[in-house]
Every structure is written in structure tokens, then in C-alpha cells.
């Protein structure tokens, strides 16, 4: 799940800082995708205004790097096909096409979060933003458990209604009372809510309990006035059960469960608990569980005539299954025909050999205490540490003793939030890329560096290249449909010198000295 994998704030900030502190890249070590801060205008794929220029002039314009022949400082000589008369210096139109100013939005920015960042779409139709209603006028109070010690209460009162009730209240606001379902007189927790609140999270002491809530207020005379009562909600357990009874049942894999559901509910309220000696102690050294040897009349056994399963059918075949056949009809609805097969008896409970205390203890020791705590993770964790906060390498490949306490577990709720190193002072990145472009007859075949390329319909082509330090040759060959061959061999040299380097890797160097002709060269014109 992608939208389930969001990166926490601390990690994003840290990573942003790290990306901003991008150290300069030396082009002698291989680094990926250094960003050009000045760049050749990249010719787009479709260039309707592209003007064809003869190959001779084309390769002369190609490349921006100075050619520094060994020992020579002057420009490398180009092909002997250079025309005798120097044409007027002009920026080739292709380099101006698709020219977009590199604004702040388009500069390489660090990824803020994974691809699943829900950014607003670009073309949003202008629509008046509707709001959800503030109330539905039901006056109901609803309760939901969120975890072992927190419940969530929300109520549906109109603003005016709530305002009037607030005025009647001695405290000028409402109160939510939460108590055990089985103890209506109390004790309860009381939460005094804000005057405009429509919901509240309430802390409750007991995990594994059923609670109900009441919304009300204290009148001026101190009397409690109830407004609404909620449904019950059960808080989850926060510890292993004390009851260690172990009873087993055999359920054949093809036995439909839908009838079981009804039989279980109608026939049996609670399971019978076999007495467990020493049960109150939650320590691992409990006494062995007792087995029941007789199938109880309670759980799972269906009484004839009630909750009979549809014979031979699996639930959900063409109609919602599990309808109560014994007359629990739905108003205004057609009941499916009652099944005619006789009710199936349930399998009896199975007896198992009694476990010895030693065995129980061995398993308890085997299982780390942390097994009852939430284990790490889901995909949220992956997104977090894939962001680069990897603290340690994976331990060596010897087998870890099984059942070790899980001290390695990190609670998913606390991102590592490691401190990123701050950018080390002023930074500066420069790089260069190369654009080679040209044209020929549309039905010719062209290779660059031996690799066949696709011409545009008008016979033109252009390609960008990274240009790390080094000396390069690139033959470009065109073969016409009739078999005539033309070739141009371009040679480039790129050298890099860095200045002001510190103990950190050298910053990206400028490619050329800041001379006038080099400024023009940046526009794609060759030096002369």
C-alpha cells in the first residue's frame, strides 16, 4: 500500500537537509545525474521550426567543451569540411525551441516523500467547494473504542441546540460521562468538553471492558441532566488472558460456517470455563490447563430447528447467506426458502493429552515476553527507514538464537528522527552536458557511436549526453536509402579543475575559465 506508506515529518526534513547539502561531485568518481546549473537548451523531440543545417556546420556547433589537445591550448580542429567563409554567428533555432526559464519550481529539488505524495492536480476545474453539513439533526451520541484505554464519543447536535444546552449548564459546556456498561450508577469518568466540541476522546482505566457513555450537563442546582446515551463499546485487552483453559474443536474444511453462526448465537451464550488451578497468577509458572472431555452443550452445538444450515450450500451463492431461517424476517423483503435438509450435528470437542507444567513453561520461555506486544510494522516502517536512516547494517549471518527478546523492535509510532548533518557551509554544483543534433534525409539510417537511432519524421535528430571528464570520440554515420555513406567523427575533451576545495570531496568545478568566448560557447557556438 502506497498511500499507507507515508513518510513522517522528521524524516523528510532530515532528508531535505541532506539533499541540500549535496556535496559537489567529482566527475572522476562515478556519480549519477549531477544537476547542471547552467544548461544547454535542450532541444525537444518535436521541433517544427527546426532548420536543417548541413552536417558540416552541425558538428561544428555541437559540443560546448573546449577541445584541449594534448599540450595544446587552442581549440581542436574540426572537420576539414569547414566552409571557407565564416558564417555570421547565429544561435541555431533548435537551441531556442522549447526554451523554458529554469524557475525555482523546476530546479532539482529533493524528493519530499515517496511517490505517493498526494499533490493537487494541475488542471482543476473551478468548482465551488461544498462543505459537509455540521449536523444531521439526530441528537445521537455514539461511542467507539480506539484502544485499550481510549474511547471516542461524538454527538450530533445542531449548533443552536448545543448553545442552548450550554446556557442551561452551570459550567457553560456539556459533560461526557463514561462508565462500565454493567454499572449504570457509576463510577464513571467525566470529561468536561469545550463549548463548541462535538466529540471527545476519553481516557478509561480498564482494558477489555464494555463501556457506555452519556452526554449531559450539570444544572445550576448541581443535578445531572442527561441528554443522550450511547451504544456500548468494548476496549481491547492489553495483556494476555488469565484463563488458560484449552479446548479444541475439529471443523472439517468443507463444512459451511454460515449455519454455525446462527446455531452458535442462538444456542449458546457463554463458554463454560473449566476451573484453572492457580489461575489468578499471570506468571508463566501457571498450573497446567485442564481439558474438558465432554462436548459442552453451549458453544457451537445447534439445536434442531434453529439455525439449520442450508444443506450442502456454501454461503453467498447468489444470495446473501446467513439469513435467519427461523422467522427473523426483514420487513418488506422476500425471505429465501427455508432449507429442507435436517440440521447437521456439530463435531464434538476433541480431547488432547494434558500438557505438563514443564512443557507449558518451556513454551512460555521460548516465546519472548514481547510477543504479546505489537510487533513492528507494516509498510509505514519501510518508508521511514528507506529514507536513509539506516542505523546499522544487518547483523552477520549466523543464526540468532530464537526467542530472543525483541529489543530490536522499534515502536512504529516513533520515527527514528535522526539528526541529519547540517549542510557544510556554502556549496556549489556545476556540471555540463552535451547536445548532439543534426539532420539528414528522412529515409536514411543514422548511427551514433555505432548505435542506430530513430530519426524524426523530418530527418532530424538530437540527443543529450552527459559529459564527464575525459576525452571522447563519437562517430556519427548516415547511410542513405541508396547506400551512400556520410560520416562525422566528433572529438571532445572535458577537463575539470576544482578550486577552493576543503576536506570534503571537491566541489563541482566550473568547466572553463570565465572568458568572453566561453560565454557565447555556452550558447552552443564553437570557439574560434
Amino acid at each position, binding site marked *: *500500500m502506497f*498511500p499507507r*506508506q*507515508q513518510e513522517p515529518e522528521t524524516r523528510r526534513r532530515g532528508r531535505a537537509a541532506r539533499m541540500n547539502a549535496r556535496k559537489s*561531485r567529482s566527475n572522476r568518481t562515478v556519480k*549519477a*545525474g*549531477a544537476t547542471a546549473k547552467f*544548461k544547454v537548451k535542450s532541444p525537444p523531440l518535436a521541433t517544427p521550426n527546426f532548420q536543417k543545417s548541413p552536417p558540416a556546420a552541425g558538428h561544428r556547433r555541437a559540443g560546448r567543451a573546449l577541445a584541449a589537445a594534448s599540450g595544446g591550448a587552442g581549440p581542436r580542429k574540426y572537420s576539414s569540411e569547414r566552409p571557407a567563409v565564416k558564417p555570421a554567428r547565429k544561435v541555431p533555432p533548435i537551441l531556442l525551441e522549447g526554451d523554458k526559464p529554469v524557475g525555482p519550481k*523546476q530546479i532539482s*529539488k529533493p*524528493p*519530499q516523500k*515517496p*511517490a*505517493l505524495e*498526494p*499533490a493537487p492536480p*494541475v*488542471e482543476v476545474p473551478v468548482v465551488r467547494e461544498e462543505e459537509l453539513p455540521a449536523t444531521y439533526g*439526530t441528537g445521537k451520541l*455514539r461511542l*467507539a473504542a*480506539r484502544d485499550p484505554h481510549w474511547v471516542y464519543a461524538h454527538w450530533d447536535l445542531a449548533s443552536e441546540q448545543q448553545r442552548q444546552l450550554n446556557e442551561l449548564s452551570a459550567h457553560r459546556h456539556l459533560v461526557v460521562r463514561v462508565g462500565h456498561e454493567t454499572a449504570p450508577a457509576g463510577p464513571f469518568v467525566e470529561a468536561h468538553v469545550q463549548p463548541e466540541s462535538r*466529540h471527545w476522546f476519553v481516557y478509561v482505566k480498564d482494558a477489555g471492558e464494555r463501556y457506555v457513555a452519556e452526554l449531559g450537563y450539570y444544572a445550576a442546582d448541581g443535578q445531572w441532566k442527561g441528554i443522550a446515551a450511547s451504544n456500548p463499546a468494548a476496549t*481491547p*485487552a492489553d495483556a494476555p488472558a*488469565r484463563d488458560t483453559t484449552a*479446548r479444541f*474443536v*475439529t*471443523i472439517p*474444511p468443507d463444512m459451511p*460456517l*454460515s449455519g454455525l453462526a446462527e446455531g452458535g448465537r442462538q444456542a*449458546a451464550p457463554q463458554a463454560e470455563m473449566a476451573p484453572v488451578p492457580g489461575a489468578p497468577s499471570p506468571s508463566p509458572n501457571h498450573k497446567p490447563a485442564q481439558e474438558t472431555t465432554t462436548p459442552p452443550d453451549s458453544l457451537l452445538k445447534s439445536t434442531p430447528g434453529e439455525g439449520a444450515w442450508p444443506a450442502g450450500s456454501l*454461503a*453467498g451463492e447468489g444470495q*446473501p*447467506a446467513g439469513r435467519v431461517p427461523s422467522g427473523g424476517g426483514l420487513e418488506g*423483503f422476500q425471505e429465501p426458502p427455508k432449507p429442507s435438509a435436517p440440521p447437521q450435528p456439530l463435531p464434538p470437542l476433541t480431547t488432547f493429552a494434558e500438557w505438563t507444567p514443564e*512443557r507449558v513453561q518451556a*513454551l512460555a520461555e521460548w516465546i519472548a515476553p514481547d510477543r504479546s506486544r*505489537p510487533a*513492528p*510494522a507494516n509498510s509505514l*516502517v*519501510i518508508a521511514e527507514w528507506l529514507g*536513509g*536512516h539506516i*542505523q546499522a547494517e*544487518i547483523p552477520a549471518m549466523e543464526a540468532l538464537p530464537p526467542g530472543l527478546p525483541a529489543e530490536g523492535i*522499534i*515502536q512504529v*509510532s516513533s520515527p527514528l528522527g535522526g539528526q541529519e548533518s547540517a549542510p557544510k557551509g556554502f556549496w556549489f554544483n556545476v556540471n555540463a*552536458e552535451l547536445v548532439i543534433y543534426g539532420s539528414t534525409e528522412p529515409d536514411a539510417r543514422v548511427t551514433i*557511436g555505432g548505435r542506430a537511432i530513430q530519426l524524426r519524421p523530418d530527418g532530424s535528430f538530437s*540527443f543529450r*549526453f552527459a*559529459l564527464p571528464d575525459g576525452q571522447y570520440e563519437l562517430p556519427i554515420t548516415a547511410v542513405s536509402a541508396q547506400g551512400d555513406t556520410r560520416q562525422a567523427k566528433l572529438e571532445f575533451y572535458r577537463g575539470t579543475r576544482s578550486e577552493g576545495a576543503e576536506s570534503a570531496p571537491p566541489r563541482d568545478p566550473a568547466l572553463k575559465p570565465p572568458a568572453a568566448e566561453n560565454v557565447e560557447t555556452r550558447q552552443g557556438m564553437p570557439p574560434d
Partner: protein
Amino acid sequence: MAGYLSLVLHAHLPFVRHPEHERFLEESWLFEAITESYVPLLQGLDRWWADGLEARLALTLSPTLCSMLQDSLLQDRYLRRLEGLVDLAEKEVLRTHWQKPFRELALFYHHRLECVRDYYLGCGRDLVGRFRRAQDRGQIEIVTTAATHALLPLLLAHPPSVRGQLRVACDHYRSCFGRDPRGIWLSECAYAEGLDQFLAESNLRWFILDTHGLMRAQPRPRYATFAPLFTDRGVAAFGRDPDSARQVWSRQEGYPGDPRYRDFYRDIGFDLDFDYIEPYVPSPGQRGFTGIKYCRVTGSEGEKAVYERQAALEAAAQHADHFLAQRLAQCRGAGKILDRPPLLVAPYDAELFGHWWYEGPEFLDSIVRKAAGCRNELRLITPGDYLREHPTNQLASPSASSWGEEGHWRVWLNEANEWIYPHLAAAQERMTELAGRFPSPAASEARALKQAARELLLAQASDWPFILRTGTSPDYARRRVKQHLLRFTRLYDQLTSSQLDESWISRIETRDNLFPDVDYRYWVERREERGA
């Protein structure tokens, strides 16, 4: 035999489909998952089949994900994106002509993307059909999940809503895979007492909980998480093995953090010149992920070094070895104590393998191959297989739990997203009212009722509150919830006032077009449920 290992992959994405925009960022979630996770998984399954390897896996394919995989607009868009990436890789090959390590990678990506494209076209763009085939020939057990991945415990106060999510999911499963689902992945492994009743109604026979869901069961489980429990409705609850989880998920110890693996964030969509990359990013005008990345994890600080594919594959093989050795050790150790072979249940998000952890599919492949070699000691099975071999299990009531942060439902119910629930509560009750009011609707009313059910289901998705809680740009999620609730309310008003705006209904039908045969009658309230 030492024991069983059950690998469970959970593939789910929320329903995101925006025909009104040419390129939409959030649709790229689907495209990336297809390219990097689902197709590689299918290719792996084909290879294992061809090599005669028996490897039973369980796989969730959520109804919303299947709907998107089968949608022709999204298929067209995906193919276009894939072609664009192949084109980009081609350009990269040229661009990196003089950078040998990068060029090798560019060639690798080019080849890989072409293979994905060939596979996608070769199967007629029908990935769901391919998964079905893998199930039909016995390689995988496909399980369903809630229709829109709603967090079911929070719907329990309104039983018809739970029923609706489950029944619609089962119907959809049947239409995709030609049989009834046997197992279910509860969204976020979220369970609360009473849910099993609804599962049993639909004959869903097993589900998976996080470790503490079993360990805090009432009474205490004898076999810990090494065997499932039966609830008193006869549904089996399996517990996640924390050690298998830790080795993959844990920040400290997890495999994917190895420095040799590919780094997720250093994508050329962010590194290269904007003009060059803009036609290939997911959202126009903004940098984004292309899937072509040249760096490896390297370390937590400093520059990233170039990704070396061979070293990464070796790492995956080593980690697979380690993982299996650990599982065997676990089984041998626990097996001495237990009186039956222990079962280790290892569920993961399917998108971990391939998308987040690029070498994940190779890790899985290694595991399957190596497991074949130690089949007599450690068997790869599915939870459904286990129940067939061990139909006798302990009766207990699992604890309410989830695999989310802090183990319960805090992620989906907190100050950032609680505002959703009052609206959902009202909408749910209104849906029941509508379902009861229209037992025999006219054709136009039936359409409106079905669309109302769709909008409600989409509003109930747990993805939205999750994004609101964990995302820093929750606008999309908020908009989605509001939009679905507003549409529902409008449909409710129109139905109750008998003034249907049919052209508007047609419009929203074509936008949110999942579950074409949704049965709104699932929201009818039963007599014994009234007053809940």
C-alpha cells in the same frame, strides 16, 4: 518435518481513477505497483511453474485493486506510461554513453521495462486473469479483503455496513476468480469481537491478526502463534510471527536496508534536468518518480554510490538463505516443545517486494527455490492448506487488535481524522433507510441506490483517514472523503424526494465505476440488529 511457513502477500490500493485529468499523480501508485511488484510477481509465478517448483503462497488482491486493474481507461494510461518509460530508458542508454556503470544500468532498465511491457501485452492486459490462472493451477490461494478496505471494527456499531463491505467483496471476488473466497485479509489486520459472525455468514474461513491479537486471546492460546485459533463461529484466526516480520520490516535488522540494495529516493525524476524528465514524471509540471534509479543505499550518510545489480542479487540470495535458516531454526526449536509442527505466518505488503525493496522479487524467488530443497523439513503452505491438514484447533476469542501503529485503531481515529466518523455514521444509517425504503425500485431508482452504495463504500475506505494521519499533504484524502459523502447525501436527498437528476447520476457513475453489480440490499437492517 520441522514446520510450515506461510508467506502471505497483501496487495491493495485505494480506488483512484480520474478520467477528468489527463495525467493524475495518484494514479501513478497503481502504475508503479504494476511495473515493479505485480508483474514481477506474476513472472516469478510463471518461472516457478515452468521449473516445477511447488510453492504455495497466499495473496490478497483487494477489490479496489482488481477493479482498477480491469478498468480499460487505467489500462490505457498504464500502457502509455510504460511506453514512455521504455522511451526514457532508451534515451538514458544514449545519455550515459560514456558512463559505463550507469550505461549498464540504463540497459538493464530498458530491458526490464521492455519485458514488463511484453508481459502486459502478452496477457492481454488482464493481470487479474493471470492471477486467477495461478490460483487455478494451484500455485497460490487468493483471498479477498473488505470491499474498499474499510477498518471493520469501526463499522461494527452498524452491522449492515460490515455486511455490505464483506458481501460486496465476496461478490466481486466471485466475478474475478470464478469461485468463493475462503480466506480474508482483514484490512490492517483489524479485528474486534463480533466480526467473526459476519465472516462466518459469508463462509470466510480464516483471517490473520497481528501477534498480540492471538497472544491476548481469551483464553490464552496454548500454541502461541504457532497454530491458529477457532472463534466460536468456527472461523480460524492466524497470528503473525514477529520474528519473520522483524527480519524484513525492522529498521535495525531488516534486510531491505542493506547498503547493496537500490536506493528508493535517488530517482532520475529528481536528479536530472527538468525539461528532459518532465514528459515522464507522474504529474505534469512537477518532479516525481520515474522508477529509474542509479544509486544504492550505501549508508545513512554521505554520497550514494552507484547501484551494482550483481552485488544486490547476491545480497538477496544471501538474505533468502538467512531467512530460511532462521525459520528452520525457529521451527526446530518450537517443534521440540509443541506436539504438532509449528506454523510461521509471515504476511507482508505485496508492494514491499519490488516497489519499496527493488530486489524483493528476487528474494522471494530465492526463498521459493531454496525451500524446494528443504521441502521435507519446511513446507511453504497457505493458511487454508493448514486448516485442511489440521482441522482441529483451540477454541478461543481473539483480542481486538490491528497491525497498525500501537496495535489498535489510533491511526484511523485521532484528532486529524475523527471528523469523518460522524458523517459516516449518518450516511450508513441513511443507506439502511434507503435499502429498507426501496425493496422493489424502478430502474432509475435502482441505479441511484447502487451509486449511493458505491459512494458510501468509497467514503468508508481506511486509506483516507490513514493519509490524513500520516501524510503531510492530506488534501487529496480529504477531498475524496468529502466528495463521496456529498455525492451520497445528494443521492439520498434525490431518492427521498423522488427527484432524480439522471444525467448527474450518469456522470458520477462513469467516474466511480467500480462494483457495477453492487447489491444495495446488503444494507437492509435485520430485526435483531435494530437499536444497535
